[in-house]
């Protein structure tokens, strides 16, 4: 990684970041660099605007979402959280995963939107507690092995949430 997204927004690299600062600094950067500010400018200035605004968007999306932020933070510390060769998960979580997947499939088959929505709430509660753990292992203990495991869980939960929404969309 040659670019540090945290520094771009004037933040220290950490999982626990001030989202308000991230947001307000993102807006400040966009105010300076957005292509709307350079409609009548020279080609060279348009290019610089496009590059900076694009970078700011990419960086903002990375830091705004907890799973992306954790993954990025691990990468900055030389750990690749998700790769094809390393997908190990503890047995207990795998069992839990299968239960969620089955609940999703059952509700989908029963065309039960209310249950799907409940399941979504459950996943979000789970996500919240994983995030609390992440700030402990990433920021305080700097235990990247454990943090990697939690990050993978978080990414998995995000995927299930997306699939739940997809199922609801298809049923509606």
């Amino acid at each position, binding site marked *: 990684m040659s670019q540090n997204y945290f520094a771009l927004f004037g933040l220290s690299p950490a999982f626990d970041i001030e989202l308000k600062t991230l947001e307000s600094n993102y807006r400040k950067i966009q105010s300076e660099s957005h292509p709307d500010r350079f409609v009548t400018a020279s080609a060279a200035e348009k290019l*610089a605007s496009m590059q900076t605004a694009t970078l700011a968007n990419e960086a903002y999306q990375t830091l705004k979402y907890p799973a992306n932020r954790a993954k990025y933070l691990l990468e900055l510390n030389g750990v690749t959280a998700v790769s094809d060769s390393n997908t190990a998960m503890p047995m207990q979580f795998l069992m839990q995963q299968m239960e969620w997947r089955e609940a999703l499939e059952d509700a989908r088959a029963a065309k039960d939107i209310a249950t799907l929505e409940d399941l979504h709430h459950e996943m979000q509660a789970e996500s919240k507690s994983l995030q609390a753990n992440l700030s402990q292992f990433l920021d305080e203990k700097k235990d990247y092995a454990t943090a990697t495991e939690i990050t993978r869980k978080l990414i998995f939960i995000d995927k299930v949430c997306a699939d739940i929404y997809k199922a609801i969309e298809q049923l509606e």
Partner: protein
Amino acid sequence: MALLQISEPGMSAAPHQHRLAVGIDLGTTNSLVATVRSGMSTVLQDNFGHSLLPSVVRYSPNGEVIVGHEAQAQQSADPINTIISVKRFMGRSLNDITDRAHIPYHFVDGSSTDATKGDTSRILQIQTRAGLKSPVEISAEILKALKARAEKSLGGELVGAVITVPAYFDDAQRQATKDAARLAGLNVLRLLNEPTAAAVAYGLDNASEGTFVIYDLGGGTFDVSILRLSKGVFEVLATNGDSALGGDDFDHRIYCWVLDKVRESNAQLAPLSEEDTRLLLTKARQAKEWLTDNFEAQIVCRLSNGIVVDVTLTAQQLVEITQHLVTKTLSPTRKAMRDASLTIEEINGVVLVGGATRMPHIRQAVEDYFKQEPLTNLDPDKVVALGAAIQANILVGNKNDADLLLLDVTPLSLGLETMGGLVEKVIQRNSTLPIARAQEFTTYKDGQTAMSIHVVQGERELVSDCRSLARFELRGIPPMVAGAARIRVTFTVDADGLLSVSAREQSTGIEAHIEVKPSYGLSEDEITTMLKSSFNSAEADKKARMLAEARVSAGAIISSVKIALDVDGNLLSDTEKQAIEAEIARLETIALKDDDTAIHAAVDALNHATEAFAAARMNASVSRALAGKNLEDINL
């Protein structure tokens, strides 16, 4: 074409240099043009005091092209040569038009054989007495009429225009709209999403803060956008919609209902003529509008075969026959809410936009869903044009202290075809613009030296369910074993929501690179040719005009770079500064000669020479904005 003067961002134009810029709402049913005058956004009227220009184009027998009310009045008499709702056909092929049995035009399948274009290059055309016309050309006639209205009203040539498009328009529809504007001789400052434009007009008018839903049901398109308004920043959180659902569909339901009624008493009703179809559709639209304020509407007319239609449609019946259409708008609404991760309680206001939202049962459905009364204090027909005008005024630099910033999103996911006809998404829907994303792919055969790249847009997993945007081939890949090549495909979506794609092989030093901008129906050359012939002037005049334009652009960039050197010259070393000054001097010399090609080349050279300087200035201004943080110090 009008040329822009280049001003320093953040620096004021000379006080008396008010640049003429307009916002144009190119609607399915009606179009409008607005501008900011004395600080107020105003819709410009024609000589008769009409604000709305019906989006109707007639190719009349004497060769004249008639646009607007007059064309609308003639539509029943000459339906084949009078095109209404052309917006529905923008960027579309014949296969996309599912209800063409009810449309009285002679469609012709486009037959472009250009292999670099996607399936959408089979853009449909309409056979008129003036020849084959593409939707782009027909739309350009509407835009020309609005441009003429604006230039007459404002008393000068326009510097540029913001053209609005439905947020849910895909790349093909956006590109077609931009092509139409260029064909009409307009300098497109920006394509702006209609709900976002409405939010600007509404938000600024009411000094609103919070999270707002814009529910925009127009003549032929439905959009729903969710925006967060905060201190002049309009951030689109999610958008969704249906680019083939609108007030027209309600007319069509009434039309079908009337036909059923007529058949009850005339069992042997022959298929309707084109004139009768158009007549009944017009009556249907009038009945729909009447029922907004009345309990029943009488539909009376005489068909060409002598049959007299006389039926009464009640407001309740209208609700019954169109409720499924209203329900159809709620599904995209729910999707947008989910994508924005919002609950109904978090919505501070719902703004209704588009003439079709005048229908009481639509208002009721929106109110029931959001559990609050929707806001209708701005004219739903005008609010989009008013917002576009405000944005146009800011983009050309008339308002320098503008705090307004629009952060819009791409409505549909963009991806590539992979093995098995599956889509690999590269950019997800609702990503903030501008955006660039790269993904790596590899070869699947030993010694493979070319790769076919198929770009698609849509949410579905199968390529066949998505819209094909472009196909191109990357050639010159060095022969390697399967899976060894690294082909990096980069998608870039600019602030207009338009996509460009590039690909390069990067595992070896050898680079193959191709840049594709999907183009629909009209190639760059075709547009240029059409524009040139429309000047209708002698060769010498053309030359003079091109030379004048080249000199204007040379003068503009020279003064812009000189100002930049004055303000931020300290960012450069002496050598760097001298290099730029040398390019300025070169351009100044060349600009004195009568060679527009050479002048353009020198402008390009100066642009190129200032790229690093522009990037450094950008970093400096970002650093200043972040209170003293220096980007160069933070390892970017």
